[in-house]
């Protein structure tokens, strides 16, 4: 029995009637039915309770007549019972359900990237000018065999390594959770820039196989869209064990998003919920994982590096060591700021650990065991800028995945309502009226620009450190200094405090 909602709207949409030309663009563009038009009265009005503050109407309004305001909290200020707690309790009192959300953890935990500073050369070691000298960002992913044999034939048996022209890839976002147009934008940009995109756990649409050579094809517990041709088409095969946004639980794509096209790609009936179980039901141990790794290697005739993606959790270093010994060529660690199309709010906000600490711990553990060169280490989960990426590589990552940043480049405004399928920006929706809002050509160009800008910035930062090749930054923690970190944090990150000499 529905109960009366006691919740006041979180946002107010204010229309400047002097500016509004009644073009009705806002009504057509709002995915959440917050903007309404009463034809009888020729009157525009808003249902504030529906507004998610995705800013689509504000951005699209040709007259600049709209502004969205955050409403004051529906309670007197309380440092313990925050507005978020109150709204959540009210919502659950009305629905009895699990709170859902989208995108990444937005809680004010410490961000270690913001407590790490980079080095620069002065006098004794000249900076290198990226405008004059080659600056090398090319990175290879895969397992390295030592020593290098001068007998060529011996190396022909190796799984080929995969080159990236910049150490930045697009992280897993499945077709189904995002639109075909957003998915295609990522694929195109990856191909044009010489990097990889990740299919996520929904397979690869048939018309996008032309980009498969730049795809990391994912195999998740649901096995959606997984078949031999798909595995052999990709450049890297990735087993998804966990995801930073929701460690320890599976995936759920609601039936509303399983359109005919999505159903064909995923190989599941139209309109049914796509549920990926939390564990792979054929992997209950590390030796089971090894079996799947080698099943995939056999299927792809040892021509594709196999990656294993795990969430950054408390024991991630030991888990990563097991994964390396189980035969993986690449380990992807996804931190607790990683985004998602849908996650229980409590899990997104309270499970997992920061990627900075996870990557430092994994890199050190693999080195302690002398097997760091046997795997590539990819960091994921909330990279906001090129500086974050440089710091992650200095902590020990070979490359990083970005996804939230990529979606922002495509237009996402982080309203966190991906799970509703109503995305006004045409990203997290399958509604053809909305998906057309992304033109893959323009989307790819925006993503390409982001990679280009970040890559230039990385080159500038490297040059400042007196380094002209990304491999000299990898794991080079002497170029990092902590500010405002305690001794435990410094020890875990393996960095000295700012002010300490080299």
């Amino acid at each position: 029995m529905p109960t009366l909602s006691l919740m006041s709207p979180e946002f107010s949409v204010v229309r400047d009637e002097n500016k509004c030309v009644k073009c009705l663009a806002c009504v057509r563009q709002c995915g959440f039915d917050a903007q309404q038009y009463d034809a009888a009265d020729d009157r525009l009005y808003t249902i504030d309770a529906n507004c998610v503050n995705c800013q689509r109407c504000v951005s699209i309004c040709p007259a600049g007549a709209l502004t969205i305001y955050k409403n004051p909290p529906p309670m007197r200020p309380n440092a313990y019972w925050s507005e978020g707690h109150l709204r959540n309790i009210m919502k659950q009192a009305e629905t009895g359900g699990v709170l859902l959300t989208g995108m990444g953890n937005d809680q004010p935990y410490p961000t270690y990237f913001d407590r790490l500073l980079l080095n620069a050369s002065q006098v004794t070691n000249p900076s290198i000018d990226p405008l004059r000298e080659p600056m090398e960002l090319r990175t290879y992913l895969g397992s390295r065999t030592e020593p290098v044999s001068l007998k060529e034939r011996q190396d022909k048996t190796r799984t080929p390594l995969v080159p990236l022209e910049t150490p930045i890839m697009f992280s897993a976002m499945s077709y189904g959770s995002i639109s075909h147009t957003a998915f295609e934008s990522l694929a195109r940009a990856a191909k044009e820039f010489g990097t990889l995109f990740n299919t996520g756990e929904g397979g690869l649409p048939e018309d996008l196989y032309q980009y498969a050579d730049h795809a990391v094809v994912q195999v998740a517990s649901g096995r959606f869209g997984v078949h031999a041709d798909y595995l052999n088409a990709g450049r890297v095969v990735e087993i998804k064990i966990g995801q930073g946004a929701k460690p320890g639980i599976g995936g759920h794509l609601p039936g509303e998003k399983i359109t005919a096209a999505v159903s064909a790609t995923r190989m599941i009936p139209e309109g049914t919920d796509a549920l990926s179980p939390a564990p792979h039901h054929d992997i209950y141990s590390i030796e089971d994982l090894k079996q799947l790794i080698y099943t995939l290697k056999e299927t792809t005739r040892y021509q594709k590096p196999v990656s294993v993606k795990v969430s950054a959790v408390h024991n991630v270093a030991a888990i990563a060591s097991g994964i390396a010994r189980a035969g993986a060529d690449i380990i992807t660690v996804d931190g607790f700021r990683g985004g998602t199309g849908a996650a229980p709010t409590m899990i997104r906000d309270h499970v997992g650990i920061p990627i900075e600490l996870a990557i430092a711990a994994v890199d050190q553990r693999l080195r302690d065991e002398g097997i760091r060169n046997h795997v590539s280490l990819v960091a994921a989960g909330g990279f906001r800028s090129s500086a974050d990426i440089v710091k992650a590589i200095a902590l020990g990552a070979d490359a990083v995945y970005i996804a939230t940043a990529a979606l922002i480049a495509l237009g996402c405004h982080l309203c966190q309502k991906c799970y509703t399928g109503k995305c006004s920006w045409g990203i997290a929706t399958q509604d053809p009226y909305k998906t057309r809002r992304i033109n893959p050509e323009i989307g790819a160009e925006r993503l390409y620009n982001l990679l280009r800008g970040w890559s230039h910035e990385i080159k500038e930062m490297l040059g400042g450190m007196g380094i002209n090749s990304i491999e000299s930054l990898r794991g080079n923690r002497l170029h990092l200094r902590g500010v405002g970190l305690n001794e435990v944090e410094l020890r875990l990150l393996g960095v000295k405090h700012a002010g300490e000499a080299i």
Partner: protein
Amino acid sequence: MLREGDYRIPSGCAISGFINKDGRRVDGQAIIKSIALMQERSNGLGGGFAAYGIYPEYKDYYALHLLFEDKLSRNQVEDLIKDNFYIEAEDRIPTRHVKSIGKAPLLWRYFVTPRVSKIDESQETEENFMTRLVMRINAQVSGAYVVSSGKNMGAFKGVGYPEDIGEFFRLDEYQAYSWIAHGRFPTNTPGWWGGAHPFTLLDWSVVHNGEVSSYGANRRFLEMYDYKITLQTDTEVIAYAIDLLVRRHKLPLELAARVLAAPFWQEIDRLPAGERDLYTRLRVVYGSLLLNGPFSIIVGFSGGIMALNDRLKLRPLVAGAQANTLYVASEEAAIREICPDVEQVWYPRGGEPVVGRLEEEAQCRLSA
């Protein structure tokens, strides 16, 4: 007293070296003269030499040059040596009084061969056994430091201008077919004898002008292969990197140089397929050993020397050839000082190794 290892010391320096490829042995006066000319590049806080072919009578024994800060450390190390080696001979390293040289540590040398039973016990090759012992002394015995540990070679180094250090160690009394030298300009004052160049391991010795900005990456990679980096100095890392690549991973020295100063990807991409594949593999596997930042180095080894610049040639390095002798130095003047009529002088390009080796006949004669 703070030592190397307590902090890092970026420094500028002078380097010089030569090899008589016909195996002709000469005393240390020429190398002292050459390095002394570049006094502007030193500041009196470190000088050193390595010489090859100086102990023909003990050529089958490891010549351990050690410095001790006190008797206690000497006793500890001697116990270690007696446990693990048969000692053929031992003595104080001969020195003479030089006014400008301050208080020197105890300087001893031992000619040793590992006990077979100990090597069997360790399940290691003789060289790895030796390496581990050197690392153990440097890391664990406070106040003791292994200056060199190769066969038929030795390193001599200390705090002072290199010409004074040469005088102090009586290098005019040693005969070597190759000499390398170093004058140091640290931007900090360690005042520690072990911190001078060359840095050595087994037969390798390295003198270095520069500051390696990839040090953190190089160091963490080498630690995976049981190298104990105790001195926080770039040069130590270079010696170990060469040891790993050439001795342990069996790469030719010229290819090891292409790891330390790798060709750029844009150059690799233009190579013929076979070479492209090889250089790609070298960079992919040993990327963490790429030396980034400015450097010029001279590497001494049994039977040869190699000089190498960073890929951008951010530090000076010049080579010269006259008859059977190859010269390398920071400055041309340092070569002309000891070989005024040098026939051929050239400035090697960044990343292009200059290698001089003993001719086959000389090699046979010296090892006979």
